[in-house]
């Protein structure tokens, strides 16, 4: 048996040497250096070209359109999503069933397919009319005059977003302890008061984090509308490089703006989470 000193104090212990960490550290450093070298020395990136287009008015206009579509899609999608979630949680079976089918369909079809479909609605439905079902018609418009690329983009993104938001809201509401609903009703709150005052604020803690992710993925999803000639950020970039053939530097401009906006959104999301996290048991 080896001899140990009489008094041992672990505070005097030295850290262990961990050779594998050194190996991985060096490998990582080499890879990063190589990538940086590639970025700097490859002339085809044409960094100066990217720089000149970064604040080009056409590109800023495209960015504005992307942001606008994101906000509209998110607001309309959230409102519709809350209604759908309430419908799915309803004890009236036909409504619950219909909302379930909606979610299954619109979550199942890729958003790109939906956008193209809405854009071509005029083929399926030449005229859009208001009237009594199976009865007389009051007003009617040719579909192609109603469905522009803007309306097709808004409809497509909203309906897609609503399906996801419905699931997020439903999960949030279900996560609230049943005892909270009992207590709210026991206080004499009506169903509406108990939902607004007690259930929803507590559900927000579960709803906010995935909603932030949805916002971010919707922003990126707006790039899909470029296929229906909607002048978003990606489309504005494409218009320019189709003319100048400076494809890579212009894609870099688009990437830069997407990253800037996503970073800002992520910071906002973190603050919201902190706000709704209070009162957590």
């Amino acid at each position, binding site marked *: 048996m080896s001899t140990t000193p009489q008094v041992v104090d672990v505070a005097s212990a030295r850290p262990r040497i961990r050779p594998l960490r050194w190996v991985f550290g060096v490998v990582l450093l080499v890879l990063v250096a190589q990538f940086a070298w590639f970025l700097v020395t490859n002339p085809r990136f044409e960094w100066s070209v990217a720089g000149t287009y970064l604040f080009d008015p056409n590109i800023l206009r495209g960015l504005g359109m992307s942001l606008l579509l994101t906000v509209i899609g998110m607001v309309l999608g959230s409102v519709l999503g809350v209604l759908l979630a309430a419908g799915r949680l309803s004890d009236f079976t036909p409504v619950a069933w219909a909302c379930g089918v909606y979610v299954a369909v619109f979550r199942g079809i890729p958003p790109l397919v939906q956008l193209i479909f809405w854009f071509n609605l005029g083929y399926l439905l030449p005229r859009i009319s208001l009237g009594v079902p199976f009865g007389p018609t009051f007003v009617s418009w040719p579909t192609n005059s109603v469905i522009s690329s803007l309306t097709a983009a808004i409809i497509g993104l909203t309906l897609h977003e609503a399906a996801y938001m419905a699931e997020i809201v439903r999960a949030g509401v279900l996560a609230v*302890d049943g*005892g*909270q609903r*009992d*207590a*709210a*009703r*026991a*206080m*004499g*709150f*009506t*169903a509406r*008061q108990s939902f607004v*005052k*007690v259930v929803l*604020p*507590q559900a927000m803690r579960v709803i906010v984090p995935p909603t932030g992710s949805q916002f971010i993925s919707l922003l990126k999803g707006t790039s899909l509308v470029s296929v229906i000639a909607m002048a978003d950020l990606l489309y504005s970039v494409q218009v320019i490089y189709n003319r100048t053939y400076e494809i890579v530097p212009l894609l870099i401009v688009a990437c830069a703006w997407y990253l800037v906006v996503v970073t800002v959104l992520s910071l906002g999301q973190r603050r919201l989470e902190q706000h709704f996290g*209070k*009162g*957590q*048991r």
Partner: protein
Amino acid sequence: MPVLRVRDVRKRFGDHAALDGVNLDVHEGEVVTVIGPSGSGKSTLVRCVHQLESIDGGAMYLDGELLGYEMHRGHLRPLPDRKVAAQRGRMGMVFQQFNLFPHWSVLRNVIEAQVAVHGRRPEEAREEALRLLKRVGLAGKTDAHPRQLSGGQQQRVAIARALATQPRIMLFDEPTSALDPELVDEVLSVVLDLARGGMTMIIVTHEMSFAREVADRCVFMEEGRVVETGTPEEIFDNPASPRLQAFLSRFSGRATRTPDERILEEESTS
């Protein structure tokens, strides 16, 4: 007229009859304790009275008013949600798991229903809340959030919250069953204080000595039925039915021992 009248109430959960024809009258200022084995329907009874569960048959009246239903052209039909909510607002409920609203401060927990349900002015509601929190011994905790309080303190806030709307009757659903043993007494003393103040109450409890001490009348339930009802002396000293005798003998043996002794005993027998 009794404050609460329960007539032949039936409630099923699937094949299981949770309440099988329960009758109970509670008069002004009366304290009724309900005892019985787990699954005997005691909790279901108070949850049904508070209309947190619907009943399948029978009828319940609060101050002579039918609970949950109304006559319409000679037929009974369920009341709309708003009227049911108003009826619930006239009763106070204290839950086993406290169920305070965790996103509000203690004070707001006690204020909110006064303002939102009973239309009291906020300053008035605040004064009433402070008075009640002082009464349950938590005057210093008004700005705390529920999660910062011990179980016993949370339950006392829950009692203040239920009292704030000046209920005609208070319903307690095993108010101390979720508490650590050393926190039980602080809650029971608040309930005892209410009883002495003349509050009409139904208390479902497993604390036998408390059930006896606080009660004007004690009810023994088993398998969804009221088996025996009487004064605490009649129930605890002279149980008539063999079922109550069996229940009390099982219970009294355990109730006189402290939890530590119970654990020691279980270890020695196993």
